[in-house]
């Protein structure tokens, strides 16, 4: 099966780099999903969450505050200003990463609606994950 090479980088280093099945990005014009074979695209990203579906069907979530995404047929590059991967081995680690992600989004986004949407999404994902 085809996969996409996804890379998420921030000024603090690389957050994610792996082959994935598909990815959903928070574009400034609305959320969009990318599957292998997507047409080339450069998009502005707003504060929100990146939902990654891994090769084995598992989901990973990364929250970002602002950035750009470059998409072509077989790779996606996300240049984010700040990003927090949500997850961890223990309950505590997951909770603290969730807290960080919320803070990150609240610090960047100026509209309450965007914050609320993103936080709600993070929470729903967190619940689903547990």
């Amino acid at each position, binding site marked *: 099966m085809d996969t996409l090479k996804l890379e998420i*980088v921030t*000024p603090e*280093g690389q957050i994610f780099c792996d082959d994935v099945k598909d990815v959903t990005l928070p574009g400034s014009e609305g959320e969009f999903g990318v599957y292998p074979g997507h047409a*080339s695209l*450069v998009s*502005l990203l707003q504060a929100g969450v990146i939902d990654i579906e891994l090769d084995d069907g598992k989901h990973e979530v990364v929250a970002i505050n602002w950035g750009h995404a470059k998409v*072509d*047929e*077989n790779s996606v590059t996300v240049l984010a200003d700040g990003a927090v991967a949500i997850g961890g081995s223990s309950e505590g680690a997951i909770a603290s990463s969730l807290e960080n992600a919320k803070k990150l989004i609240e610090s960047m986004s100026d509209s309450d609606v965007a914050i609320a949407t993103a936080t709600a999404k993070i929470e729903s994902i967190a619940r689903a994950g547990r």
Partner: protein
Amino acid sequence: MPNLKDIKRQIKSVENTRKTTKAMKLVSTAKLNRAKLAAQQSRVYADKINEVLSEIAYKINQYKIGGIESRFFEEISTPEKVDIVFVTADKGLCGGFNIQTIKEVNRLLAEYKEKKIKVRLRGVGKKGVAFFKFQDIELHSEYLGVSSAPTYEKAQEIMCEAVEDFKNGITDKVILVHNGYLNMISQELKVNHVVPINVPSEYESDSKSLMELEPEEDETILESLMKKYFEYNMYYSLIDSLAAEHSARMQAMENATKNATERVDKLTLAYNKARQESITTELIEIISGVESMK
């Protein structure tokens, strides 16, 4: 015969110098670790953003997409005015670190002079600025106190001016020169042609579809991406240069400490020789005095 007191004083002085250089080395080592980490972390981002911009430039050139921003992507065959931004340290005592950058800038100056291209210099860091001032070479602008404590805001300020001039057609090219960090013991000189964004000649994109921009009604996305690209390149140069400066200083100070140790050894030897000589002379004097009394 060398004076015993003089040698003693010299040894003391060299030992003091050694203490200073040793302390400076330790300080640099500590600072280097921090600066190195910062540089390595942002290298990934800098590389990626350059890669993305190169690909966009490639596509724009390939499909001849015009627009206000096209000036940023077109390589001008006969540039008339070039801006060189160079980054040196604010402090000395770091071996050949600053000299290397200055030499490269001088080489570029000579090269462009031959081609009859006007060059403007923008200097970052006290050492480089002082050098060119001493040579009576005019600097268009100078930024002091940035290279020892680089921040994103300062990088923004420097780059903003250079890019603004390019945008308005005052300059045709902006080159960034800095001495970057390679590893603990060596530095690497980096010359980066920031604008126009150059596409590697052998560049071959495996993606064949036309690139879409989103939001597409205006050019804000390219503008913001490019702004980020320029600023980040500048910022990266600053932190990379800082890491290199510390590694250079660490090495220079280590050499100085080593030299001082050798010097102390030599002086101690000379001191002991002189002491022995004086004892021998005194002995001879005493013995011959005793002999003469017999």
